């Protein structure tokens, strides 16, 4: 099943074009990895999917992005509701400087998801459990989230993202600031999360893309060079550039 359908997406930063004609289908309940050298536009594309590019004044997006057959670039699209459905995890762990509990309960609070304190407690607990953080922090839910280690902070951010039960989770190089052990934990988690969520992950590490994803898209200089199943891209790419990048000849 196709969850997200991008059609001819162009992105401009002022006069400079950052993405050219991107068309890409994202499969539901699978992990799609976006790879490519720095500055190729993969993060820009990711940020189109929850319209985080709106925040940047000079950025404009053209083209259609259909999520559940609804064009999110339409004027009628409500960004707040869109972002409730599409969660995001950033490159650098960015928990709010509040308690762990407040971090996770923030989304459900502003979207009015929990009806009672009890329900909220449950949401916080299940979110933290799904993010594989519960056992480590259950005794200090009311301590500041910034006191955790980097890997724990990133899992807290994942817990925060899944607390509103989004359909899609966007991950922008979620492991680039983490050590190998924390990275392994997050990767395991991604595998677990794809049962309930569609995941799109931007990564610099080709090994990581190969490990966690089912589909891969390769970006280069603002263009989507090739996309398809991860197996195919890594073992038998159609394009010479993809081949070169994957074998480490450039990038």
């Amino acid at each position, binding site marked *: 099943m196709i969850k997200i359908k991008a059609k001819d997406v162009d992105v401009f930063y002022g006069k400079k074009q950052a993405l050219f004609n991107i068309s890409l289908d994202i499969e539901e309940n699978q992990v799609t990895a976006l790879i490519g050298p720095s500055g190729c536009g993969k993060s820009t594309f990711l940020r189109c999917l*929850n319209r985080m590019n709106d*925040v940047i004044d000079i950025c404009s997006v053209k083209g259609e992005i259909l999520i559940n057959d609804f064009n999110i670039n339409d004027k009628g699209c409500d960004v*707040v509701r869109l972002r409730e459905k599409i969660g995001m995890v950033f490159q650098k762990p960015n928990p709010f400087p509040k308690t762990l509990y407040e971090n996770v309960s923030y989304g459900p609070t*502003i*979207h009015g998801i929990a009806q009672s304190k009890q329900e909220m407690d449950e949401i916080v607990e299940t979110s933290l459990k799904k993010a594989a953080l519960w056992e480590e922090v259950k005794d200090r839910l009311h301590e500041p989230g910034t006191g955790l280690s980097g890997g724990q902070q990133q899992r807290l951010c994942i817990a925060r*993202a899944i607390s*509103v039960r989004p359909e899609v989770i966007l991950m922008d190089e979620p492991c680039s600031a983490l050590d190998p052990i924390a990275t392994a934990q997050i990767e395991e988690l991604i595998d677990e999360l794809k049962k309930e969520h569609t995941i799109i992950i931007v990564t610099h590490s080709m090994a990581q893309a190969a490990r966690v994803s089912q589909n891969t898209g390769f970006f280069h200089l603002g263009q989507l060079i090739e996309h398809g199943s991860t197996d195919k891209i890594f073992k038998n790419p159609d394009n010479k550039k993809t081949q070169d990048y994957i074998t480490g000849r450039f990038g």
Partner: protein
Amino acid sequence: MNKNKEQLLNKRYKAEQRFRLYGQSAIFMALLFLTIFIFKIFSTGYSAFQKTWLIVPVTFDAELMMLEQNPSKEDIQDADYYDIALKSMADLDPNANEDQENELKRMVSYFFEKEIKNELLNDPSLIGKTKEVYLTASDDLDQVFKGNYPRDLPEDQRRVSDYQLKIFDQLVANGKVESKFNISFFTNADSREAELAGIASSFMGSIFSILVCLMIAFPVAVLAAIYLEEFAPKNRFTDFIEVNINNLAAVPSIVFGLLGLGVLLAIFQLPRSTPLVGGITLSLMTLPTIIIAARASLKAVPPSIREAALAMGASRMQTTMHHTVPLSMPGTLSGTIIGLAQALGETAPLILIGMVAFVNTIPGSPMDPAASLPVQIYIWAESAERGFVEKVSACIMVLLGFLITMNLFAQIIRHKFEKKWS
């Protein structure tokens, strides 16, 4: 080659040592100036917290006071105290002629009649009896007793005559002169007589002005800063506004005073000399300081926090109110305190809107005429009487104490906030 390197290294170490020395001497200089300043203020000002009293026996003669038998409270209130007051002072020297009696009268404050009256009001049974009453010494004798008065000047160059000094010395020898804590310095309003002048009016004036200033400047400045930083589009127009806010911060304070005079007093007809007008004028001056501080602390909130909130589906308003503003509050508050401290020490704009007027009542609201502490310093520093010299320093001490308390308070608030948010 090696020797060259060694020399170079030595040179670098020496340069560093010299630099340290410069830095240390700079700090030493700063501390020295501060110490001299504080020493000067304290050594001149501390004596203002003491007041000299003459202990004079007063005979409450019912006849002289025009009181009838068994007078009521109102009768005592309305009685004539001038004659017994005069008589008590004249009795200090039974041989005094008329001129000398006049001089004796001038040894105490002109207020002495009221002091005697209060004594009787407190204890009506004193009628017909004699009691030793504390009377405020005149400001010159106050200075004589404190040792600040040049007694060796020729008599025609002093305001205290030889005769007065002779009687005063007799009183001192008899233990009839006493120095006590000067409560009236804190409870009295300004007065033409140095011995009676106090800071109550200017202190209250300052507090009211600062409150008015805070209540206007803080909300306006914070809203302006939040809007400019978080909501306004970045274009030429907002750049223009930003440049002009910075310009506004550099405008000399006297210009704001003229604005207050021309707009608040002339056009809006607000009451002259009041903390209300003073506070509004000061708030115009404080506004850019707070805006700049608030914007800087909003800018200092990492963008990743805003992105996190926005990505959770928070609206811009929620992102701002739930995350950015609380995180920027410590910085905003410290900027506010700095702005208010500046406003507290401001004199020029207040002089222009008439807060320099002689006010001998204590204001009960921002709508009553009042002075302010720095203006009070200015008024007293201009006065000729010797008694005001120590008052100036004492007033500076109060002002500095006020400022230090404010800063301490701000620090405590800030500390608490920062602990919570980090």
